């Protein structure tokens, strides 16, 4: 098991948002977490990324316990997070954001990584001198994913990567995620676009009020009547 | 015309809704009245020598309440409140010494004048879209300019400052009493209470709510039809007027004002420190902060002056009292993130 959560509890201030969470991601899988708004999906990813501390439980990455490590240590362990609010370097240019993404990487790899990102999102090449916070919502999303890829992660966690994207881009981004996985990266995504997310996922979990209530392969969940009704709006 | 008012779902909710605004305000007024009554009798129980400290604490309190309106509720961090304090202090001194105008009237004139100055400064800053640190530094620069102006203006006696002549006997009209008259305590106490009452009224009023909305998100507020400049300037005017009253009273109590006393950077920090220590953007924070900060340096100094036996070695080391005060200041700021009142309130809410 590549990424594993053992009865993790986390939250803000005195409020627990997720309770006693158990799930895992195998190496080279795409796993998605779906669930209603406010279920605690973002909280889960933030805890994994080290942005908030867990209150109890264990998070293991490739066998090593990483709960309560600092975010930068987690990045160095190969797990990179794309936040829901993107956390871009707003005043810096696109290319600088990307270069910064490779902070933990040897300088020699930057050019190659840049090319790969530009290939995935050509608009970033076009706008590489533009300041990040003047890009449109969708453009910023692409930049955030691009920046994460610059760190050459072994495991990528994405919080609603398709939010605000044009339909053709949603397809593109999800396609890109598949390709990223195919290149050997393990992917954990949280998505509202449940149908499309399930379509590319190897496995998926359904989260409700801070706990996992269902799990299965992407296909299984997609076919489950319960899920279709509750999360796919069908 | 829009039709939402006749929306089919728009059922009336007559008593369902607690009238929190009025209740809230009323409760605050009651606290204020109770506090006022208790504090009124303080001089009877404290030794005479504590009066200067009490008065200074009250002056800090008024300044901090004023500062808090603009910076805490209005979100416009002023780092130059000395400008408004000083305008009040000098207006009082100049009107009294040159024209024999009663300090009470001078206080009002000073407040209006100071509000005008504040509005002008804030208008300039906001017009040019200064926010955050830039706004703070601009107000700071204005205060510094006022300091330099006062030092160079004949009207205010340049660096010499202005003395308020001593009167042979007590006079309510001229606001002068025997040195240890309790009036010197009760008057600022009432002024402070009035300032707090104004704050309560403002915070729960429509302009006050607009101001807080603008602080939280000016863009959203504007898009909801709130003229942000107007309400920001109203807040600034109130804030400056209150601060100015502290300045006027300062002149009356100390009977002397010079450029440093009126406009130095320390005056600005004197307004900020109590508010931050007590809790920014709360009604009671600045008061609690002033009650802590006002006597703090005195207490420390007293301890250092006559230390208990085990601290004997501290006696007479110059600078020690301020050093200890500084450490306490830092400790409070570090360990009480929302100020004393803000932190307590947060705990209680849970």
């Amino acid at each position, binding site marked *: 098991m590549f990424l594993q959560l053992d009865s993790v509890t986390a939250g803000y201030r005195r409020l627990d948002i997720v309770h006693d969470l158990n799930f895992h991601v195998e190496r080279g899988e795409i796993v998605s977490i779906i669930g209603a708004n406010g279920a605690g999906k973002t909280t889960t990813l933030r805890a994994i990324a080290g942005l908030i501390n867990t209150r109890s439980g264990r998070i293991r990455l490739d066998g090593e316990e990483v709960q309560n490590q600092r975010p930068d240590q987690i990045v160095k362990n190969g797990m990179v997070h794309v936040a829901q609010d993107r956390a871009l370097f707003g005043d810096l240019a696109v290319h600088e954001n990307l270069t910064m993404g490779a902070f933990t990487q040897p300088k020699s790899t930057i050019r190659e990584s840049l090319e790969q990102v530009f290939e995935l999102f050509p608009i970033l090449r076009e706008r590489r001198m533009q300041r990040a916070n003047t890009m449109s919502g969708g453009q910023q999303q692409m930049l955030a994913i691009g920046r994460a890829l610059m760190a050459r992660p072994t495991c990528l966690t994405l919080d609603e990567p398709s939010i605000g994207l044009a339909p053709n881009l949603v397809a593109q981004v999800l396609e890109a995620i598949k390709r990223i996985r195919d290149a050997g990266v393990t992917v954990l995504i949280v998505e509202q676009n449940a149908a499309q997310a399930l379509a590319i996922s190897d496995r998926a979990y359904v989260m409700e009020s801070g706990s996992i209530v269902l799990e299965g392969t992407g296909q299984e969940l997609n076919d489950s009547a319960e899920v279709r009704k509750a999360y796919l709006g069908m | 015309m829009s039709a939402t008012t006749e929306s089919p779902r728009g059922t009336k909710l007559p008593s369902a809704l607690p009238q929190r605004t009025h209740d809230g305000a009323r409760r605050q007024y009651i606290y204020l009245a109770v506090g006022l009554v208790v504090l009124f009798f303080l001089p009877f129980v404290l030794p005479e020598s504590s009066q200067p400290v009490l008065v200074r604490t009250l002056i800090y309190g008024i300044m901090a309440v004023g500062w808090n309106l603009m910076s805490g509720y209005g979100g416009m961090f002023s780092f130059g409140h000395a400008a408004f304090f000083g305008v009040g202090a000098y207006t009082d001194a100049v009107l009294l010494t040159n024209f024999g105008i009663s300090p009470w009237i001078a206080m009002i004139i000073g407040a209006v004048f100071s509000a005008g100055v504040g509005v002008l400064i804030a208008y300039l800053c906001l017009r040019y879209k200064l926010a955050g640190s830039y706004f703070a530094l601009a107000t700071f620069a204005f205060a510094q300019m006022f300091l330099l102006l006062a030092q160079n203006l004949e009207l205010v006696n340049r660096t010499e400052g202005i*003395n308020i002549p001593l009167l042979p006997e007590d006079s309510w009209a001229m606001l002068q009493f025997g040195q240890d008259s309790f009036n010197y305590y009760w008057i600022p106490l009432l002024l402070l209470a009035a300032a707090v009452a104004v704050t309560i009224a403002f915070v729960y009023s429509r302009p006050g709510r607009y101001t807080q909305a603008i602080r939280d998100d000016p863009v959203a507020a504007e898009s909801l039809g709130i003229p942000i400049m107007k309400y920001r300037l109203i807040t600034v005017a109130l804030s400056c007027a209150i601060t100015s009253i502290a300045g006027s009273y300062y002149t009356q109590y100390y009977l002397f004002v010079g450029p440093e*006393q009126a406009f130095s950077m320390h005056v600005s920090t004197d307004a900020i420190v109590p508010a931050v220590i007590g809790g920014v953007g709360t009604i009671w924070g600045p008061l609690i902060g002033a009650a802590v900060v006002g006597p703090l340096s005195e207490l420390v100094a007293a301890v250092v002056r006559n230390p208990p036996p085990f601290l004997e070695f501290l006696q007479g080391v110059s600078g020690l009292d*301020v050093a200890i005060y500084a450490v306490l200041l830092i400790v409070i700021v570090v360990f009480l993130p929302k100020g004393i009142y803000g932190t307590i309130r947060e705990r209680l809410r849970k």
Partner: protein
Amino acid sequence: GGGASAGAGDTIAIGAVHPLSGGLAGVGGMMNDGAALAVEDINEAGGIEALDGAQLELRDGDSQGSAQTGQSEAQRLISEGAVALVGTYQSDVTENVASAAERADVPMVIDVAVDDKIMEQGYENIFRIQPNASSMGQAGAETLAAMGETAGVDVEKVAYLHIEGAFGTSVSEAFTEEAEAQGIEVVSTVSYPATNFSDATTQVKQALSADPDVVVVTGYYPDNVLVAEAVQALNPDILGVFGIASGAFDDSSFPADAGAAATNVLSANYHYAATSERSQDIRERFEEKYGRPMETAAMLSYQAVEVIAAGLEESGSADPEALRDAIANTSIEDPLLAFDGPIEFDETGENKNATVIVMQSQDGEIEQVFPEEFATAELIFPARDQ
């Protein structure tokens, strides 16, 4: 307000308000020590005889350099029973403390504070030992003329450099007026700011551009050191640098601090009487006790306590009102400062015989050089190689 009268064997409290912390803490602390030493000496010599040997007690107040703190400290000391106050070094703080003392009818003896205005308020209870700003300006001009005469040097034109503000302006104005009467022309007057002043070259060059014989300087310590250094660097053809009420030129740190620039710099100022044995003895004991030299300011604090003690002896009562009257009528022979005569106060409370003498920085020491009666070393004038 005011303290209760003291009976036999009681202690009598004197309040001292000085800047014990903040930027002026150095000098403030030293002054406080000066006052403390005086109290100690008096107590050792048997206390106040007229009050059955009552002992004195010094209560410190820290003005922190701020007027309002100064005032509240004064009020505290008074309400804790101080029968008289000593202080405060800064003019604006003194204004506030004086008004507090006046209102409480407690006498105050100003040790250091130069502003003329303090005594112009018509206060009854306030006394000052040192000369005020304008009298120093005037005496400075007289002395400069007399000194030139004695040394046989013609001083015709002077340039005046002074710190901005009441102190600098009133000294310089009084000087200019008296200088004219003495036949000396002030050819240029340059003021410099009291804050953010860290290089005096431009101002000195500006003053020198009128080609004066002497550069006259009034200001505080750091700025006057800068002026001396700038004069040294510009190396003009002048007779010398002459401070009046300078905060630096007769300070014992000055020769080391300014190095070569201090050589033969003259300073007209009130000063402890280096020729008086009593004052020499006090200075020696002070240095032994506190590990630093006793500057004039501290001597004034010492003197101020003595004035109060003399008042207590005379009135035989610790009642502030009686004390006030006694001080107003006192006459202290053998003052510790180089004055024209005994310490006696006029009706405004100023010391009638307060005046300045001239010091000169010679070979790393501050020497008294003029007038003759106070001289500890020979005057070197012209003070610069021509």
